């Protein structure tokens, strides 16, 4: 299981990189180390591998804090754990507000780091899972025809078949047929399931037609 996870490390200090790599290896975690943000950006990354980034705050070139701000622009969405030589409280507050998993002043206890990394990896796995299920559901949803999409929109908002028939100006039988098609195509086991799927797809805000 651990083989499928990856911890990225960006620190300008070779000694720290080496030590961190070895520490994580000793608990069977795979790592990839970089001396600067630029090196990290140049490397190939597999977006489907649960991963997190251990990032040094202060580095020549681009600082870790600035990079954290820009990660979204680069399309990188992995949890970040900051490590810093001289972090102050305001800095850590800013980092946490911007969504960092943790902010560890050097030198830190290995349990603290490993615990943060585990949280980061779990979060990453969840994010990837969420993303892949979203893609899967979008694909399923795209297979519905216009009529079925309309029925689904009303169903998940709690309309009865009779009401939907009236709204769409079709017979109740048609609604029933489309409804069962929707359940099948969306692979929903129950109405509650379908409502959840609609939430993930963010259909609540979609226009009804």
């Amino acid at each position, binding site marked *: 299981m651990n083989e499928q996870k990856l911890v990225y490390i960006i620190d300008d200090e070779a000694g720290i990189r080496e*030590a961190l790599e070895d520490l994580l290896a000793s608990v069977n975690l795979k790592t990839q180390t970089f001396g600067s943000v630029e090196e990290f950006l140049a490397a190939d990354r597999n977006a489907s591998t649960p991963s997190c980034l251990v990032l040094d705050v202060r580095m020549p070139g681009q600082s870790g804090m600035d990079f954290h701000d820009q990660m979204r622009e680069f399309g990188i969405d992995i949890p970040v754990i900051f490590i810093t030589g001289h972090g102050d409280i305001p800095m850590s507050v800013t980092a946490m507000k911007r969504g960092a998993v943790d902010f560890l002043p050097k030198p*830190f206890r*290995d349990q603290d780091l490993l615990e943060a990394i585990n949280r980061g990896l779990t979060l990453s796995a969840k994010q990837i899972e969420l993303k892949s299920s979203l893609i899967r559901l979008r694909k399923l949803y795209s297979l519905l025809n216009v009529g079925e999409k309309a029925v689904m929109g009303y169903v998940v908002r709690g309309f009865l078949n009779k009401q939907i028939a009236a709204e769409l100006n079709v017979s109740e039988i048609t609604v029933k047929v489309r409804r069962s098609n929707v359940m099948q195509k969306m692979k929903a086991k129950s109405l509650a399931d379908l409502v959840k799927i609609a939430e993930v797809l963010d259909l609540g805000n979609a226009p009804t037609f």
Partner: protein
Amino acid sequence: MAIATRTFRTRNLTKKAFALRCLLLIVIIAIFIFDTLSKLEIAAAVFYIVVILIGSRGFSRSGIVALSSICFALTVISFFATKTDDLQTGLANTLIALMALALTTYIVIWAKTAEQNAISAIERLNRVARIQSLGELIASIGHEINQPLAAATVSADACRNWLYRDRPDIERAKAALERVTRETSRAAAVIERIRSLSKNEAPNKELFDLNTIVAETLELSAQQIDAIGIHLEWDRADHPLIIEADHVQMMQVTSNLILNAIAAVKTQEPTNRFISVTTRRDGNHKVCLIITDTGCGIAENDLAHIFDAFWTKREGGTGLGLTLVRAIVEAHKGIIEARHNPHGGASFKVLLPEAHQKPTNADKEAKNE
């Protein structure tokens, strides 16, 4: 340096003080004889003021009070010892003389107190300036200690993990342990450097290579230089530049000049942040250190003042950094010049006499590193 100057001053003072005391004694006796022998209506006692004024130069406040009391007593003795012609005028004159004496004493003591306050203020400021420039360095040094310390801690943790595995991996544990040793000695080296910086000892002149001092200074400020994105160039002499100087004081010279250059280029556009350092031999048995920056430079009118105490244009500057630098350079029989570059920025040139002996072993080692 502070201690040495003080002893030097004290020794000089004892000589001077002895001469002063002799002079005063002669003057006092002369005035006393004149006052006693002259008619009572001649207020010769007024001349005791001269004694107080001379005494003010070399005596402490209590010394001046004592001196004044002696003059007081002598005036009164003279009054009774002198033959009376006109008692009324004589009494009035003596009282005026005593009043003048008292007033002079008061003014001298008052001036003395003010002077002393000013001196202690200068001493305090000097200390603050030194602490401040050290503080700037220490902030960057703190990072340098923390890095190896963190690496050592992490490596120690890794080592423990390798050993506590179900099947301990001794080889990897050993490698981790090697790193712990390496990193801790790195931290110790940094601490050793700080200690040599903060020592406040008498000048301890030794022979060393100016290049090593410059290298150490640049290493200590590397963090800052990198953080600001300064392009640093060092045109290093390919042969050792041996000087006989106090290591710590020379560090203060180089670090003050470098910190000034950093502060100057910081105000410029990121593309225009250059500092160039040159170390070379300069003709007549002199070694030369030039630090040039592309900062804001020095205005023509300011060139004459930049080494003055308390003269500063930098926000929050104490105006003592360059004063200290010049004092140290001159104490080492050197000269320092500042000039404004035609294309902007400032340039500082330090010339020091070259020592002829061979470098010590420590220097050789430093060079080989």
